[in-house]
């Protein structure tokens, strides 16, 4: 199995005034292709820092980070931007869609920063990504014309459009009700079954049980790492949930 993410003895210190905060105190982590990993932990445990470093938004103070065979630990700001553009898809808790911009244009956005992709190809790939998340009939809609779940689907389509090696989701179901959460998880499981590697930060144990492995952080260390045995199939949960009449 090919390792997409290979992190060893990773440390991250922040300097707040004269105080040094050790956010990560030596983390070893390997994530293989096709895994669906839950990163859990209380706030202040280092999980957000971990996600920022995995997402190449931040650089570690010490240690190595090999992403898809490339050592990204020492890269400059611009090099990391290029890596994010090509290898990483982000899904955020608050969707982060551009307002007054159609779903299709929102999905096209990552490809705008890739000059190798021409206008026609960009449009085709965005359409394909929206179809993959089941929003083929909502392409021209503005974010404010879409429900929370639909907006998150647009965001997932946006994370897929550059065909990344890993999708990073930061509490992607945090703003959604449980029914919509399982719909989104079902979509993630679907993408995972097609081979996408996904790293998913959450603090909901039920959501974490939809994945293949869970990693728990505390005080800058990984304190527990386990395969999930009784994996929840989100689609089945969805069928069992009572349909609410509004």
């Amino acid at each position: 199995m090919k390792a997409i993410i290979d992190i060893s003895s990773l440390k991250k210190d922040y300097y707040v005034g004269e105080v040094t905060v050790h956010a990560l105190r030596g983390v070893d982590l390997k994530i293989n292709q096709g895994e669906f990993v839950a990163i859990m932990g209380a706030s202040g445990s280092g999980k957000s820092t971990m996600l920022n470093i995995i997402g190449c938004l931040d650089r570690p103070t010490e240690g190595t980070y090999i992403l898809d065979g490339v050592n990204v630990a020492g890269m400059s700001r611009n090099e990391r931007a290029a890596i994010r553009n090509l290898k990483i898809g982000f899904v955020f808790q608050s969707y982060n869609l551009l307002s007054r911009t159609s779903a299709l244009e929102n999905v096209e956005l990552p490809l705008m920063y890739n000059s190798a992709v021409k206008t026609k190809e960009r449009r085709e790939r965005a359409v394909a990504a929206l179809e993959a998340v089941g929003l083929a009939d909502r392409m021209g809609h503005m974010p404010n014309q879409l429900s929370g779940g639909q907006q998150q689907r647009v965001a997932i389509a946006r994370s897929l459009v550059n065909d990344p090696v890993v999708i990073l989701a930061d509490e992607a179901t945090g703003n959604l009700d449980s029914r919509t959460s399982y719909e989104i998880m079902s979509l993630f499981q679907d993408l995972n079954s097609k081979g996408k590697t996904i790293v998913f930060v959450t603090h909901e144990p039920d959501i974490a049980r939809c994945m293949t492995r869970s990693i728990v952080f505390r005080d800058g260390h990984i304190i527990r790492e386990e395969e999930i045995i009784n994996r929840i199939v989100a689609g089945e949960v969805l069928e069992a949930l009572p349909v609410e009449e509004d």
Partner: protein
Amino acid sequence: MNIGNLLKVALNALKRNKMRSLLTMLGIIIGVASVITMLAIGQGSKKSIQDQIASMGSNMLFVMPSGMRTGGVQQGSASSQSLTVNDVSAIKMECDAVIAVSPEVRSSGQAVYGNSNWPTTIYGGNEDYLEIKSWTVVSGRNLTDSEAKGSAKVCLIGRTVADELFGEGIDPTGETIRFKNIPFKIIGVLEQKGQNSFGQDQDDVLIAPYTTVQKRILAQNHIQSIQMSARSAEESAPAMGQVEEVLRRTHKLRENEDNDFQIRSQEELSTTMTSVTDILTILLGAIAGISLLVGGIGIMNIMYVSVTERTREIGLRMSLGGKSMDILLQFLIESIMLSVFGGIVGIMLGFAASQIVEALTSWPISVMWSSAILAFVVCTVIGIFFGWYPARRAAELDPIDALRYE
């Protein structure tokens, strides 16, 4: 990101905030429009003065007697009798930068035809006088050399005098009028010139041979002034030098003596007159320029607010692979677009406003293309200058902080 995508992104961002973009542009629009209109007004008045001065003659120079001292008493220049027809001949012979020269004598009096009469001025000159003064004959003919030298009782009539004595638009060529009881046969009618820049009616004239005015009307031997044309505008200055040299010799002035005459050129007159309108143009332009500057500050303000308001968008764009330079260029292009679109609309509005001012006030307006180009360049510079700081601020944001920004 390539430039096409950058333009598209910037344009989309402006479209998302149509009202705000429009209001921001308004500052630039008004600024540019006022610069163009003000410069058009200033330039128009300058041009009209230049035209009027040009209508006085072509590359004209003239010599007037200057005041003399007689026994320590300063005399008025009108009493001076220093200029003579001999001076005119000497200039004609010796000054090669002068192509035409004529004496000028004048007298005021009543022109009479039948039972009509009209107060006017008769100017005496030679056959070159019309050319020097940029007069053309619309009907009839010019004076001849023999008429000029032989005190012939003929004259050319200005449109105003003709209208007053004979009636509107009537061609009086061949008729005879009396001026100071001397009969003058009208040999031609002068083309209408209108008022000069001092408000004088230039058509209220009679032109007759200088000998006639000198001998039959004034009974004098001296002349009041010498009128000349330089070969070209450039030769105006050398011509003045040559004329001075000749006149100092014919007037037998010693080294240490002051000139008893003064030479003036149309160039000088034009420069003096237009320097006033130049100041006017600068003043109007400066006021309008300030409004353009205020418009630019408006852009900076909006861009600044926009960067703060769109911090999360900037964070998102960075997380999706936007480099610092992409973000910088996006905001810079937005600001340049605002100012350049504003500039284009402002240029059109300025042209329209100039036309309206011209129609309403009948001021002379002259819209300069150069001011439109200048305004356009200034707008682009304003866009870059006032957009730079907010854009750099956006580009230097930390993607993690920006994404988390509430």
